[in-house]
């Protein structure tokens, strides 16, 4: 069987490196044996094992879009202070892992010199919460469907809320996320504050492109509102604009029907999602601002609303109370009052089963 290609040499399906090979020795030794943790100061955690051993973590904000040249600098620091061990968090912060407490401050100095802030932690025992990094998506850097950019608005918002990342000065956990289209790769549908790129105009069909690149039946089937019908003669599709709510799913299926519109596309803001089941159950975020303009480079209208929401909540929330829980307490009518956000009719759900969000009680506030 000499004629067969020497496939054995082709390495594939090896999966990721085994994580245990990446763990610092103190973690390997105490795997599953941690007793408690403390937040020593913003950005610095210590976890103490049952046997008294400790691991320190220094949490560092980063833009997610990282150059390999920066990663190498980060590695240099990890080599110098952490015996070459570090990790990332599920919200894209870097965590330097140390065993020598005395190295924490020099490490912080060095990483901050590189332009990366230390912070993003929270401390339930003291009831002090720092703001973490914004989970986000590709935007104009790489995706074909974004209604807005991703990294740009994130940078603008984090600049504006920077102190909350550095200092643990918020009453509860607050997660901000951004997705550049309704596919919601950022899973913004369950964050305390979410930003999502939205279109406001139906797709513009280029029959020619549709004919060349699209499968008509699956394009038709892709529309949740049944707004698309086939035009069998011309081998293209026709959009019933009345029925279109601009979700963009048709464009995901078929490049021949983009719905971009620089002036009409923009940003929706959702609030009150939460994922942990601490205290109150996890829940989805709710649309409170159906549209703000897509205004690069610094999206000032968006930043302004985010700040207003955050500040109204921070001023009034009780310890541990997240935005969802604050609203539970004060009521949605007061949320709009407190934040000064105009209540627009689009906020009322009339998608598939509107009955679920219409108020069925006379209980409300004036």
């Amino acid at each position, binding site marked *: 069987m000499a004629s067969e290609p020497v496939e054995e040499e082709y390495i594939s399906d090896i999966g990721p490196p085994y994580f245990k090979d990446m763990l610092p020795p103190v973690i390997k030794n105490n795997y599953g044996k941690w007793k408690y943790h403390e937040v020593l100061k913003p950005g610095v955690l210590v976890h103490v094992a049952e046997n008294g051993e400790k691991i320190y973590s220094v949490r560092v904000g980063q833009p997610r879009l990282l150059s390999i040249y920066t990663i190498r600098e980060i590695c240099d620091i990890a080599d110098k202070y952490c015996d070459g061990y570090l990790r990332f968090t599920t919200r894209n912060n870097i965590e330097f892992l140390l065993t020598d407490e005395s190295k924490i401050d020099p490490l912080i100095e060095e990483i901050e010199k590189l332009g990366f802030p230390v912070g993003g932690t929270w401390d339930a025992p003291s009831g002090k919460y720092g703001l973490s990094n914004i989970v986000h998506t590709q935007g104009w850097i790489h995706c074909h469907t974004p209604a807005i950019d991703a990294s740009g608005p994130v940078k603008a918002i984090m600049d504006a809320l920077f102190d909350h990342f550095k200092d643990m000065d918020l009453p509860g956990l607050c997660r901000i996320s951004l997705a550049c289209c309704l596919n919601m790769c950022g899973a913004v549908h369950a964050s305390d504050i979410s930003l*999502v790129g939205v279109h406001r105009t139906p797709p513009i069909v280029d029959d020619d492109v549709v004919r060349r690149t699209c499968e008509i039946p699956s394009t038709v089937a892709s529309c949740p509102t049944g707004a698309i019908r086939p035009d069998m003669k011309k081998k293209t599709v026709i959009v019933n604009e009345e029925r279109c709510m601009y979700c963009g799913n048709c464009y995901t299926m078929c490049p021949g029907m983009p719905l971009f519109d620089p*002036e009409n596309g923009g940003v929706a803001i959702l609030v*009150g999602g939460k994922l942990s089941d601490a205290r109150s159950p996890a829940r989805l975020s709710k649309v409170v601002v159906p549209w703000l303009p897509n205004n690069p480079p610094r999206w000032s209208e968006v930043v302004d609303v985010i700040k207003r929401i955050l500040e109204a909540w921070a001023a009034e929330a009780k310890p541990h109370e997240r935005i969802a829980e604050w609203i539970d307490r004060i009521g949605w009518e007061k949320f709009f009052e407190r934040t000064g956000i105009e209540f627009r*009719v689009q*906020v009322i759900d009339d998608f598939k089963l509107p*009955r679920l969000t*219409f108020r*069925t009680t006379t209980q409300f*506030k004036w």
Partner: protein
Amino acid sequence: MSDEEFPLLSELKKGPWPSFVKEIEKTAEHKPEMKDLLKQLERSYEDKITYWKHGGIVSVKGYGGGVIGRYSFLAKECPGVAEFHTMRVNQPAGYFYTTEALRKICDIWEEYGSGLTNMHGSTGDIILLGTTTHNLQPCFNELAKAGFDLGGSGSALRTPNACVGPARCEFACIDTLELCYDLTMSYQDELHRPMWPYKFKFKISGCPNDCVASKARADFSIIGTWKDSIKIDQEEVKKYAEQGVDIKARVVNNCPTKCMEWDEEKKELRIDDSNCVRCMHCINVLPKALRPGDERGAIILMGGKAPILEGPVMSWVVVPFIKVEPPFEEIKELAENVFEFWDENGKFRERLSELIERVGMMRFLEAVGIEPDPRQIKEPRTNPFYFWKEEDLKPRTDPWEIWRKAEKEM
């Protein structure tokens, strides 16, 4: 009537609760044909199936409804109920009667009907249970002479109904009975001449206790409320406390927004009215001490109905506050806007809530002239799937032009 004849039914003559079987028996003593009702019913009890047929349309001159036609599968065996139509007679608001009025109905029904009634039907009517096609018109004529009229059935307005309200309740924030009467009289045509996509119901409660169960059963519920502060008589609060009412446990802790405080020392109750949601609980428990405020009016909720087709609906808050004062112009204007929109847009057998769900709350609010308000919703939507109107938008640009220009440029 011997119990051996109707062994199953006779089981239902036992026990302390008043027996409907005895009522039929009692009637049959005067009107022997009613024994046939027992016969048919016993048969149903044996076979576990109804023996009533789908009714045909029967009514009285000039009316399209008010009568439910009914025929028996056992016509031969039970000729006394071969035709057994019910007449729905519009009750006086609040179900108040003089014995004189009630006796008149009894007399007429003795002459033209089975002598059986339901006091009352679920919608609110006096149900005259069972008569023949032949008797319908004369019965109606007599009722009319006695001052009574038929209620609604079919694709029409249904008999409006209200809680006892100001007639005998200290909590009433609006005049439920006067409003009920006014709406009934204003919409006689809509009540008697079916012409709509389906039925439409009004129900009116004087306060959020909702003693007429309007939220579940009315396309248009009107519920009294107030906007200013609860009135407290601290002396009476003290008295309740002294009489042993545990104000902290029973009142304060049950407040849904925890906006009350009980000062155990001073025996004083404090309410932060800006956080009160007017649920009535504290007023219910301390009726001598607390009262609704003075700025009174109603909340209008729409769309309540039974489960078919899409599952049951509790009415939705559409108007968070409206004045309710005779001649009730605001409410009637709104109701008429709703009738018009539903009549024009509703499909065959589509209730108001189903229509609103189909066309969207945005279009509905606009059509009937109501502003969006956060009080209309439990919570905002979780999906960003909404519509814009042309006036919301800037002139459209074509992405193809942008891209093609860019591709060519160089």
